[in-house]
C-alpha cells in the first residue's frame, strides 16, 4: 500500500542512465533560488536511499541561477518538459549554455522547477547537451519527504567510483587496447592433427556404406574400384604441417602437407592372406589453399579470424607390404596385387577459425571436404575399353583438424 502511494507520487519520463558517481557532487539548480529542497537534507536523503553513494556533496547552483542564459534555458526547459517527448527535443541550442554543461566535469546538476502540484526534475551531466533523465515528483511541503522522493526515484542506482585527476588524465592519454592497424602481411606456420573419414556426418550411412564396408579379396578383387576407400581404411587420423600468409588481413595463401598411414582392407576370411605380415599405404597430400578471412580483435590478447579456404592437392601413396618372415616365395596373387595411380589430384574446400593469443600463438580449427581423383583431362585412347580401370577415380572424404601455430606480422 505504501509502495503504491509512493510509486504514484513520482514519474520518470525518460532516463538514459547517467553515471552516478560514488561521493557524487550534486548541484541543485532552481530558477528563482527558492529551492523546494534543502541541499544538506538532500545529501542525507541520498545516503538513506542509496547505500553505495558514499559521502555525497550537495549545494545550490547559484552561478546558474544568476546567469541569464542559463535562466532562459531553464525556463524554456520547464515550459517544454512533457510526457513522451524524446530527450533530443530538450536539447540545449545556445552555445553559451552548451559550454556550461560541458564544463560540469563529473558533477551532476539536478534541475527542479515547480509546476502546479508537481515538481519537474531534470538531471544533467557533462556527457550530453540534453537532460539525461526527466520526470516529475509530487510537490511536498515536507522538504525531507520531497528529498527522499527525488533520491529514491532518480538516484537509486548503482554507483561508480570517481576517478582521481591523475587517473582521468591517464585514461585520456591511454591508447585504445583494441586499436590496431591491419598488418600488411600476416605469416604463420603450424603443426596439426586431424581426422578424416569417408562418411559425412549427418548423412544416411547407405550413401557411403558400399565403399566403407568393402573388403579386398585375393590382393585385388573388390566389388567396385571407383573410390580408394574400397581398398584402404576410410577413417584415420592425420598429421599436418602447413604455412601460410594473409595479405592485408583479407586474402591469403597456404601451403600444406598431410600424412596418414592407412591399412589395407583385406578380407580376413580369405586364406591367401595367411602369408602376409602387413600391408598398408602411407598417404601423402601436398596442397595449396587460397584463403579469405577477416580478423576480429575480441580482447587485447585474443584475435579471432574466421576463414574460408579453397585449394587443390596432390596425393601420393607409398606402399608398405611385407610377407611373414617364414614365407620365401609369396603367392602369385601377391605378385599381381593392385597398384594405385602414381598421383591423384583433388580439391579441398572448407571453413575454419584461427584464434591468435598474444599476437603470436595461434590455435586453428578447420573442417572441410577433400577429394582425390584421376586427372580428368586425359584424352581417351582408342583401346580404352581394354585398358584397366583406374582405381580411386573419385574419392571424397571430410576432415576436421586442430593446429598449433606461430604468427608473425610484417
Amino acid at each position, binding site marked *: 500500500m505504501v509502495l503504491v502511494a509512493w510509486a504514484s507520487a513520482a514519474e520518470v519520463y525518460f532516463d538514459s542512465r547517467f553515471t552516478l558517481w560514488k561521493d557524487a557532487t550534486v548541484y541543485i539548480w532552481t530558477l528563482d533560488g527558492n529551492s523546494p529542497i534543502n541541499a544538506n537534507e538532500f545529501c542525507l536523503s541520498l545516503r538513506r536511499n542509496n547505500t553505495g553513494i558514499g559521502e555525497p556533496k550537495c549545494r545550490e547552483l547559484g552561478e546558474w541561477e544568476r546567469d541569464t542564459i542559463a535562466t*532562459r534555458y531553464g525556463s524554456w526547459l520547464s515550459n517544454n518538459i*512533457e510526457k513522451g517527448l524524446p530527450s533530443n*527535443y530538450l536539447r540545449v541550442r545556445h552555445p553559451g549554455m552548451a559550454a556550461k554543461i560541458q564544463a560540469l566535469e563529473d558533477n551532476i546538476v539536478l534541475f527542479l522547477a515547480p509546476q502546479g502540484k508537481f515538481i519537474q526534475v531534470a538531471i544533467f551531466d557533462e556527457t550530453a547537451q540534453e537532460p539525461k533523465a526527466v520526470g516529475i515528483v509530487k510537490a511536498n511541503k515536507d522538504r525531507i519527504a520531497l528529498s527522499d522522493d527525488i533520491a529514491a526515484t532518480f538516484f537509486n542506482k548503482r554507483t561508480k567510483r570517481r576517478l582521481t585527476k591523475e587517473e582521468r588524465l591517464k585514461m585520456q592519454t591511454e591508447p585504445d587496447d583494441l586499436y590496431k592497424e591491419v598488418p600488411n602481411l600476416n605469416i604463420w606456420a603450424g603443426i596439426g592433427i586431424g581426422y578424416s573419414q569417408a562418411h559425412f556426418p549427418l548423412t544416411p550411412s547407405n550413401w557411403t556404406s558400399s565403399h566403407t564396408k568393402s573388403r579386398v579379396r585375393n590382393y585385388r578383387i573388390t566389388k567396385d574400384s571407383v573410390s580408394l576407400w574400397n581398398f584402404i581404411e576410410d577413417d584415420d587420423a592425420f598429421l599436418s604441417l602447413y604455412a601460410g600468409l594473409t595479405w592485408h588481413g583479407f586474402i591469403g595463401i597456404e601451403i600444406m602437407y598431410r600424412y596418414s598411414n592407412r591399412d589395407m582392407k583385406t578380407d580376413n576370411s580369405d586364406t591367401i592372406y595367411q602369408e602376409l605380415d602387413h600391408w598398408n599405404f602411407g598417404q601423402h597430400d601436398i596442397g595449396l589453399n587460397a584463403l579469405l578471412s577477416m580478423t576480429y580483435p575480441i580482447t587485447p590478447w585474443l584475435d579471432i579470424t574466421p576463414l574460408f579456404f579453397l585449394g587443390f592437392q596432390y596425393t601420393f601413396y607409398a606402399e608398405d607390404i611385407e610377407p611373414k618372415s617364414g614365407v620365401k616365395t609369396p603367392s602369385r596373387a601377391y605378385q599381381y596385387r593392385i597398384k594405385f595411380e602414381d598421383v591423384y589430384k583433388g580439391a579441398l574446400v572448407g571453413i575454419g577459425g584461427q584464434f591468435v593469443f598474444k599476437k603470436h600463438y595461434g590455435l586453428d580449427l578447420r573442417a572441410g571436404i577433400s577429394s582425390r581423383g584421376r586427372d580428368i583431362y586425359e584424352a581417351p585412347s582408342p583401346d580404352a575399353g581394354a585398358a584397366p580401370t583406374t582405381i580411386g577415380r573419385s574419392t571424397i572424404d571430410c576432415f576436421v583438424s586442430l593446429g598449433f601455430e606461430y604468427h608473425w606480422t610484417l
Partner: protein
Amino acid sequence: MTFKKSILFLGFAICILAGCADSYHWTASHPSYHKAPYGGIAVTGIENAFVITRSNWFAKRLEISTDSIQIKGTQHCRNIFETEMRKAYGNLIVLPDTANTKFPEESLKLDERIFIKGHIPEQGITLKDSVGSVPPFVLILHEFIIGTDLKREIFFDYALVHNESGSIRKPDNVSAIFSYTLWDNLKQRPLFSAVDEIQQPITTYKLSNLTNLIQIAVQKIRKNLAEGVLK
C-alpha cells in the same frame, strides 16, 4: 496485348522513378504539434526571404528594368504574400525581420540529407509585436527562391549542393523553392518545418503569373501546416 504490357511497364517505371525522386522527407513535425494555427498568425522573414534568380529573364518578361528587378520584383512578391496571408488568417501580424535575424543562424534537420538553414529565436525568448503582445504562432519564412527549372534537392540536399547546374536553355517552368518554420512562440520550439517546391509552366510570363505563383505558395504553406499536424 504487347501494347498493354508496354503501358503497364511504363507505368511501373514511372512509379519507381517518382518513388525514388520523392524518397526525401521534406517536412518535419514536432511531436507536440497537435493543432494548426487558425484565425491568427504572425509572420517574419518576408523582407529578405524573396530572391529572384535569372534577373535578366524576369526583367525582360515583367517589363521592369534589370537594375531594379530585385527590389521591385521581391517587393511585389512580399506584398502579395502578405495580402494572401491576411486573407487566409484574418488576424495577421507582420514582425520585422530583425526581430528574428538577431539570433544566430542554425540548421534544422528534416531528413538524413536535408537541412534547412535559418534564424530561429533563442530558447526562453519570445518574439513580441509592436504593441508588446506575444503572438502564439510565428511563421518564419527562411528562404523564397524564384527562378526557372529549379529543383529543391539541388538546394537542400547537402550531398548535391555543390553540383553545377546544366547549361542555360529555354526554361519550361518558373519555379519557387521556399523553406519555412512554424514557430511555437510560447514554448519556443519549431512545430513544423518544410521545404516546398512549385513548378509553374511557362506560356507567356507576366506579372500576374508571378502573383499567381505567390498565391499558390501561400495555399501550399497552409495546406502543409494543416497536414503536418500529428493526431
